[in-house]
């Protein structure tokens, strides 16, 4: 159950990152066309940018953690295979 909740939160964070990134790209583009409207330089966009940064950082940490776990698992498997090989050779 805990594992499932974790997976849902991780998926949600990925979608939030995609949505906020797309929003920011659109706002960045229209701000270049019409600076006077202050699409970037306003409180709401600044908060959205902060949320995007936090979600991206969390996603990055989770991805790095998952990569590390996979690498450790692969190393363990490799070590096990090598031990089996050595056992057979004896």
């Amino acid at each position, binding site marked *: 159950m805990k594992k499932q909740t974790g997976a849902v939160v991780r998926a949600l964070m990925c*979608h939030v990152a995609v949505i906020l990134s797309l929003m920011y790209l659109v706002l960045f583009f229209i701000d270049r066309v*019409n600076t006077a409207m202050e699409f970037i330089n306003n409180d709401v966009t600044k908060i959205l940018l902060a949320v995007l940064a936090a979600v991206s950082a969390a996603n990055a940490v989770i991805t790095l953690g998952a990569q590390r776990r996979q690498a450790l698992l692969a190393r363990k498997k490799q070590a096990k295979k090598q031990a089996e090989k050595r056992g057979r050779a004896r």
Partner: protein
Amino acid sequence: MRARVPRPLWMQLIADVLITGIALVVFAYFHHVRPTQLQSENVIIPRPTAPAVTPAPTPETASDPALSPAVQTQTPEPQPAANDWGSFAGRFPDKFTSGAVESGEEDGVYYYRSPNLDITVTVSRAEAKSTSGTYETTCYVTDFYIRDISCLSTGMAKGKYGTGQYEWLKDMASRAGAVVAINGDFYGARKNGVVIRNGELFRSNHSTFDACVIYWDGVMATYAPSQWDAKTLAKDGAYQAWSFGPRLLDENGQPMTSFNTTKAVKERNPRTAIGYFEPGHYCFVTVDGRTTESRGMTLEALAEFMYGLGCKAAYNLDGGESSCLMWQDSVISKPYKDGRKISDAVFLVEPGEVQP
């Protein structure tokens, strides 16, 4: 419990794009659509009763040529007497009628003469240059003399100060009883930049835009962002101040070639601008644009045009769909897509007209 099969990636991405669209609509609503009445800073700038010192620009600090020297085309002479600050009756004695109001239109020239106003609107095809060559575009030059500074007035949409408050120029002009009305700087689309209207400081936040100020003594000056501070402008006796621009003429009255704005604003567009000749004598310029008949003007062409009129200072107001000129009860320019609701306007009114 069986694990759910995840939806295909493309489906998830399409859902994300749709949610992004909805989020942007919600953002736009809160950013600039929802009407929000703001609190004015409520600083009343009184009409001076004695001549004040002509304000000097603050020293230039920016290295960008677009932000360099201030346009400070003030005409200190003749200094008004203590009791006629902002009154120009003595300057142009032959311009105003003794009592009658003469008004009409002849061959594309609209005129209005009264004891307080002398207005001439000339509709012409002006030659403008762009990178693709020379072309003709429709221009409306409103040349006017005012007896008193209060004849050059401003108004806000629905008579309220705020963001997301929009109204048709026609409605604002009719409420103000304006003889001539043009759109303002669309202050309501931004949260920063000086807003001084009819001697009241509404907003003093600094912005990266050039500012244009008309002082109570009738002097108009334009400033680069590093040269203006709203509180100082108020202290110096500002009567009207806009922050959009950019300014079109430099400190020597020469047309500028580098402008403090974005590429989109510099390009050929419908335009509204205000020009200054001397205290009490100004002009509005409205340019139709974005049609095959009249393509509008680049900022460079507009600067050349204002220079050609003999202006000493000139400032670009909001353009595009906002650009509109009203003569009494009718719109005489051809606003792009029939115009749009705007947040503020500039009027020529008879003194004593009820202001919103």
